């Protein structure tokens, strides 16, 4: 376990140290703390537990609504889902932890907006499996680095996902196939996450993996930044993501000519 060198949120570090209870509100989401530990997180960018559980048919929507109606006021919706026999403990923990780290990733994304903390505010879902604020910060940093290690072009994160034809012999795994099948050229990674009932970060990561494999278009960077920041790693051979409209016909002729000489 290594400490986070530059905290993603100095306020979160301080609140964890003072074992605070309440809601940390940021531009892209909210983290809920109990005794300095993260018990819940939500973000408009990430599907909630309800979406994850109901999309695949694991839980009927009425079952979710009933749980919120009956246990929301006591802040024990998660507990109710288990006690009423709708979910097992393991399922609830797997699903909820996944949703918490997912929402936290977006809630802790770099922002220039204000960060506020409202002491004593809890979330109606209730506590399932608290995680340390440090673990959440560390995982958030790891996820950012992972995305850039896979394909350092953030433009694919928010643009509509546009599939590209596979190269001869190129195969795609089942989960990525489902993602490509749902990509209609208009849906963004966030739309696809909601549609498929998957965490938003997982969808971002798969889209970056697909873009790196040349199976999804990489839109050009908007404007050259005044401060270019770190130099991106060299691109893999044959990938030309920043060319808006490569001359496919020319490339095909070139390939054919080369193959003719083999």
């Amino acid at each position, binding site marked *: 376990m290594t400490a986070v060198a530059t905290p993603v949120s100095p306020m979160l570090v301080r609140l964890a140290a003072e074992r605070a209870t309440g809601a940390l509100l940021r531009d892209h989401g909210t983290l809920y703390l109990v005794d300095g530990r993260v018990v819940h997180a939500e973000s408009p960018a990430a599907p909630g537990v309800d979406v994850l559980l109901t999309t695949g048919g694991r839980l009927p929507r009425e079952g979710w609504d009933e749980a919120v109606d009956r246990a929301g006021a006591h802040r024990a919706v998660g507990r109710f889902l288990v006690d009423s026999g709708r979910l*097992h*403990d*393991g399922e609830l923990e*797997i*699903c909820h*932890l*996944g949703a918490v*780290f997912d929402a936290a990733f977006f809630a802790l994304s770099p922002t220039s907006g204000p960060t506020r903390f409202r002491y004593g505010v809890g979330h109606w879902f209730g506590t399932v499996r608290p995680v340390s604020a440090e673990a959440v910060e560390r995982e958030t940093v790891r996820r950012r680095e992972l995305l850039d290690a896979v394909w350092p072009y953030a433009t694919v994160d928010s643009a509509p996902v546009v599939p590209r034809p596979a190269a001869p012999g190129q195969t795609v795994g089942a989960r990525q196939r489902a993602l490509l099948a749902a990509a209609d050229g208009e849906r963004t990674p966030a739309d696809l996450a909601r549609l498929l009932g998957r965490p938003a970060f997982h969808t971002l990561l798969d889209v970056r993996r697909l873009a790196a494999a040349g199976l999804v278009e990489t839109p050009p960077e908007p404007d050259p930044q005044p401060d270019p920041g770190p130099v991106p790693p060299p691109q893999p051979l044959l990938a030309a993501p920043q060319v808006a409209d490569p001359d496919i016909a020319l490339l095909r002729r070139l390939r054919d000519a080369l193959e003719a000489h083999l």
Partner: protein
Amino acid sequence: MPGIDECLLEAMAVPGARGASLVDWTSGLALGTAGDSPVGDHETTAAETAELARSAAEFDSFVAEGDIPSDGPPVEDLIVTTRAGYHVIRFVETSFDSSVFLHLWLDRDTGNLALARIRLRDLAERLVLG
């Protein structure tokens, strides 16, 4: 069966167990850990085993080897044998969209691979079916 922690505690009760974790193989996140990691850091081990599991779960050669009707995941488990130990990675099938596995690291001398496989299969089922 109760939750993740109880499941990992039971995994650690398997003879020869040195470390256990529940890992999401899409992201490489450790959802829970117990015991030791071979490299002294469960998060590193989780990220590395996730890459291995993802390859096995996605490559056609393992997934499309016949149309055997089944409710379970196409790949059931992975075994990596090292000089000093065994690693058993058991995929956990949930009824919502997820990508998690149980990882059990065993001592090669005191561990029993056949027994560990059976126990891990049982644990993976009980974790989500109760």
